[in-house]
């Protein structure tokens, strides 16, 4: 399943079908050993090995940064190395327990995965159309802000209030994303530059409005909102003591909707066609300018939903000025790991949800900062984006080179 990585010059949109692997690559050693269908195993082998490598490098980092063990190194190197290894064991054990070890842990994993899946879908939809949406962060800001406004100022019963807030989030995120798509379509401004810049603009805008009377809690002087109305809060699935809420079902639904949209609908076909070759699509009579704007609206809308799950679903339901955190960038790793396929993004989102939720436990119990997860994400991206590197490390038979160029130059 190398369809996100085919060279952009390929002018046949038909080859975009989800499991096409028609370039006649020789089967890798892994395929011959497992006997699994080629596309299925090729879709999984590199991500799985990337994860293994990331865990190994993470272990090395934990060992190297173990200050206490280094102090012991001069006196008793054996004990010091033993300490380091046990440090790795404790950290990874706590990470696993924090991700899967209890109902609370599973709740935290699903809760953390919710916005990740939605934002990952946002980036994946962009990739499918040949657009690199780095702006999930900004779209989360604006979408989350729109949802927050509805959550604070509209009084409705919950069964109407929540959907209205979510629609507001789609509109807000969609406008922010669609703006980048529109600029690309109309002026050729590269979406990577505009979305990066829109991220910062959104961040400062949210910082500002959270200090205005529209959002700020009365008597407060920090940029933090008043608590949203109860009817707008995303309902917890397992009761109030667990944080996972109906936002997770929303993310699951989004996965299926995006799957349908991309691979079963006409406009999805046009999106993918434009991703393969804008010129061929235009020649076939598609309105590429409209497609760019539309896909960035959809992408932004998905990211906006991710933002809404952070503003409507995070106890204590008061919103602070950096509610998207690093999710907007995690989403890029997710989309790559999931091969820009909705089901892949779902799996990758659950994995990252587990890593981050477990990472928080690891930080508290083992003293290894959750920043390790950021490093591991970076490593996963490297290994996924440079499969030759993984193949070289594991001595797998090299396949034909698959350049991962997703974007064209600024001027393109």
């Amino acid at each position, binding site marked *: 399943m190398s369809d996100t990585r085919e060279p952009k010059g390929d002018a046949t949109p038909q080859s975009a079908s989800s499991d096409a692997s028609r370039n006649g690559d020789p089967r890798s050693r892994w395929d011959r050993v497992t006997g699994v269908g080629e596309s299925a195993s090729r879709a999984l082998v590199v991500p799985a090995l990337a994860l293994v490598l990331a865990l190994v490098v993470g272990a090395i980092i934990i060992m190297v940064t173990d200050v206490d063990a280094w102090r012991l190194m001069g006196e008793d190197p054996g004990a010091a190395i033993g300490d380091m290894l046990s440090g790795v064991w404790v950290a990874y054990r706590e990470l696993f327990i924090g991700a899967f070890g209890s109902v609370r842990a599973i709740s935290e994993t699903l809760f953390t995965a919710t916005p990740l899946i939605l934002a990952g879908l946002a980036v994946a939809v962009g990739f499918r159309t040949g657009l690199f949406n780095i702006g999930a962060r900004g779209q989360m800001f604006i979408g989350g802000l729109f949802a927050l406004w509805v959550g604070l100022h509209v009084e409705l019963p919950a069964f109407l209030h929540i959907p209205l807030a979510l629609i507001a989030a789609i509109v807000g995120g969609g406008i922010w994303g669609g703006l980048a798509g529109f600029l690309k379509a109309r002026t050729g401004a590269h979406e990577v530059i505009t979305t990066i810049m829109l991220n910062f*603009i959104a961040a400062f805008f949210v*910082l500002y409005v959270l200090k205005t009377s529209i959002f700020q809690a009365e008597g407060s002087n920090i940029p933090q909102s008043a608590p949203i109305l109860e009817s707008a809060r995303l309902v917890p699935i397992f009761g109030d003591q667990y944080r996972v809420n109906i936002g997770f079902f929303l993310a699951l639904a989004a996965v299926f909707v995006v799957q349908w949209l991309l691979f079963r609908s006409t406009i999805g076909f046009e999106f993918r066609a434009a991703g393969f070759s804008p010129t061929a699509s235009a020649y076939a009579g598609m309105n590429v300018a409209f497609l760019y704007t539309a896909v960035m609206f959809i992408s932004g809308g998905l990211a906006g939903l991710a933002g809404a799950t952070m503003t409507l679903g995070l106890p204590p339901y008061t919103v602070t000025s950096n509610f998207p955190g690093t999710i907007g960038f995690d989403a890029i790793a997710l989309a790559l790991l999931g091969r820009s396929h909705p089901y892949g993004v779902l799996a990758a989102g659950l994995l990252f949800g587990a890593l981050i939720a477990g990472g928080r436990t690891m930080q508290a119990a083992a003293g290894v900062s959750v920043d390790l997860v950021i490093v591991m994400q970076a490593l996963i991206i490297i290994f996924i984006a440079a499969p030759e590197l993984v193949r070289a490390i594991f001595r797998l038979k090299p396949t034909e080179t698959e350049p991962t160029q997703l974007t064209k130059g600024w001027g393109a």
Partner: protein
Amino acid sequence: MTTTIERTEAVEVRNRSTPEERRSTIVGWVLIALGVFVIIAFGIGVEAGADATFNLSLQTDRFQDLAWSVSARNLSIVLGVIIVGLGAWRLSRRALDWTNIALALGFSLFSLAFLAWAAAGSQFSLVGMLRSTVILSVVIVFGALTGLMCERVGVINIGIEGQLLASAFAGVVLSSAFGTVAGLVGALLTGALLGWLLAWLTIRFHVDQIIAGVVINFLALGLTSLMSARILTDVQSLNAPERIPSIRIPLLADIPVLGPMFFDHTFFVYGMFILVMAIHLGLFYTRWGLRSRSVGEHPKAADTAGINVYWVRYRNVILGGMIAGFGGAFLGLAQVARFEEDMTGGVGFIGLAAMIFGRWLPFGALGAGLVFGFARAVQQKISILNIGIPSEFLLMLPYVVTIIVVAGVVGKARPPAADGQPYIKQ
């Protein structure tokens, strides 16, 4: 593309206006609107009598107590009229080369009127703000030059932020442990290493350049935060570098206003001006520059002419990384003099913006960096003065300007032709 077509049409049909002429008209109307705004909002609309006092000397200066008191209202009206005049001059569509200069001048006068309005009835250290403009622009300019070195050979670098952050970390830790020189060398090598990583991933493995840049940002943020939390909080002596002192240039530093602004800084600031000049000369007057630019514009032609495209790209991207290392060292060893998690806070992306705003030119990068530095200095000032203007909007300014520039509203910036394109030797 469209502009070239329009240009040829303009030759055929004499009475249709050229893009430059239309731009001049747009700039003219923008300036007139700006001038009218200044006259109304800062001039007529304000009560008379409040004087703004601009202090023009610092405590440390040789010539003390230089100041300029002026009625904020009258000054604004005069400046507004001048801006309107500039706009009218642009509408006349004469001397088209001066459009940018008129625009820059108009916005400078606008800034002065704004400051007078903000400082009305009180004192305001103008020279202090100009000095901090220079200081705040240093990291931005180094970041922009990093991006420029890479993009001129066709490699997009959005990992500038990570390169700055990682080299600031390395500089602080090594300087604390082994002294300033070790810190500087460590910062340069860290920058070079991350530059090499970008080049290696994109050239050897054809990794998408944007993704490689994202990876560098992730790696730098994750690793420095992790090590900061795990090591620096425990061993605090590793986060206490000696601050690099300023070098006061004799005589020149005594010039009022210009002295404190330009001639009383750490060597990083002088290095910045020298580097801008050096890259400008190198890029446009040496064999190295010609080869670099040819690789960025048309790698295949360069290859055919016998230039080793891979080597040129590796070399320039690593050099770019070292420039970021220098910028990171300034941040960690001179500006802040300690390491804090995520201490770059987006300045690398402002550098990227400055490179684009400066149209991939070294002096453009310097000018854009100073403009963005000025915006930050004003933002810091007005959040202290507390005059009711949300400082967030000034913080947004570099990003908004960049979108306007890439969208071609005020003249289109053109990147190197092969920017972002991997080159695969046949």
